[in-house]
Every structure is written in C-alpha cells, then in structure tokens.
C-alpha cells in the first residue's frame, strides 16, 4: 500500500510532539515517554497515576476533536489482526526491558544526548528495518 510523502505535515506534527515534550518537562518535570507514562498506570500502580491518566486522555481525545472539526488523519493498517496482537505483545515486553520507546528514547532521550537513549534508538531502528524487510520481502506478507 503506497502512502503519500508528506514532509510539511510530518514536520509540523513532529514539532508539535517536540513542543509537548518541552512543555511536559517545563511544567510537570516529566519525560514525555509513552512507555514510562503507561507503565505507571499498570499494576503495581504508581502513586502518581493521575497526571499520567490526564496525559493519555488528552492524547486520545485531541485527534478525535481534530477529526470532528473536519481535520484529516490518513490511517490504514495493512497488517492482519493476529500479527497486530503478536507485535503488540512483543512491543510491550521490549519497551519494558528497553525502558522506553520512540517517544522516550527516540525524542526525549536523544534530545538530552543520553548515551542509553542513543544506543536504544539505533538498536530499535535497525531491528524495525530488518523486521519490515523480512516480513515484506522474505516472508512476502
């Protein structure tokens, strides 16, 4: 499935993501990492769960409001449901042990020049690329 090259929208979206990371640090003193935020609302629950729920609520509701207001969000999932669930399970285990994902390591950690985050980001980018190659061009799914 082809997707349209969208440099300006992607750049604008990326700047918004960065802007939110800066604001969360400036106001709440927190890293805007989705793994860390989610892990705190899973058992054993972190005592500071309310701000995490508020962040997640905002993150879920904003795109819905954007769509309601007539905005367009291109969205297609070219992956069968069982593979999505399998991938989700692996992502969950991986980000737990890797202590972060694209937002925490790839944006916030890299921006702080954290060696751990740089190592993690290089690692998952390589493995994601290899996996996509194997799935699409070797397995042919």
């Amino acid at each position, binding site marked *: 499935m082809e997707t349209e090259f969208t440099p300006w929208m992607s750049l604008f979206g990326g700047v918004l993501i960065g802007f939110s990371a800066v604001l969360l*640090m400036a106001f709440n*003193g927190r890293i805007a990492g989705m793994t860390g935020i989610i892990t705190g609302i899973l058992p054993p629950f972190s005592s500071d769960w309310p701000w995490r729920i508020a*962040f997640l609520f905002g993150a879920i509701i904003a795109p819905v409001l954007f769509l309601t207001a007539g905005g367009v969000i291109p969205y297609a999932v070219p992956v069968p449901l069982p593979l999505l669930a399998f991938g*989700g399970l692996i992502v969950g285990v991986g980000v737990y042990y890797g202590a972060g994902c694209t937002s925490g390591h790839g944006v916030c950690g890299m921006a702080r020049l954290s*060696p751990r985050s740089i190592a993690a980001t290089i690692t998952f980018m390589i493995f994601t690329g290899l*996996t996509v190659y194997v799935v699409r061009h070797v397995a042919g799914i």
Partner: protein
Amino acid sequence: MRKLISSGLIGAIFGLGIAISGMANPAKVLNFFDVAGQWDPSLIFVMGGALITTAIGYMLVFGARKKPVFDAEFHLPINKTIDARLISGSALFGVGWGIAGFCPGGAIPALGFGGVSVIAFVGAMLIGIVLARSLDGVRHKPAKAF
C-alpha cells in the same frame, strides 16, 4: 489540579502531533522502514522536527529554571549503563514495531479513531508490559528510570 490540567493539555498537543505527523498510521510507518519497497521518507521529518524542537526547548528550560513550574524537581532518568537488558529490550521492541507498524506513542493517540486494529495492538502491548514486569519480579525495581 494544575498539574493534571497541564498534563492533559500537553497530552492533547502530543496526540495531535502524533496524528498529524503520520506516526499513528501503520501504513506510513511501515513504508518508512521499507526502503527496498514503497519507501515514504516522511518520518525523517517527524523525528527531525521533534528532536530539534525538544533539544532546543530542553536547553532553554534547564537553563532558565531550577525546577518545573508545577513540581519540586525534574524527574530525569538516573540509569547510565548501556547493558544487555537495554539492547535486547530495544531490539525486541524493534521487531514488534516492524511487525505491527504501531509503537506505543503512535498507538495511544489512534485509540479514539483507529478501530479494532489499534485496540488489539494496545491490549496486547499492555499484557506484554505487565507480563515482562511480573517475570522481572522484585529483583529489579522498575519505574524510576522512565
């Protein structure tokens, strides 16, 4: 209360940024990694825009303030070691991301409009985190490093 309102509003900016950028769109994410196929380089602009904004913004924040507006301290990761745990976890995350096309930050903002696909992904991901955490047990105390 101020802390909750600010994190809710900041979460909204995050979610909107993710949705607009294409990170919540598995077709686009997978095409970014499919250099040998239908390559869509858009995500370079997402990462670039996010990274440069955050790097400059963090410098300004840490330079201007001793502590955040609504908290007593900046909660920054203290762990500095690059170990097998970090690398193997990140590798595993990469495999899962390559299979599904969703990463955690890309999936959550899609929950309100992405239908059963993203719900299945997020459900399995939450199970994965809880599973890994319980297997990890008490010997490794989690969370502070996030």
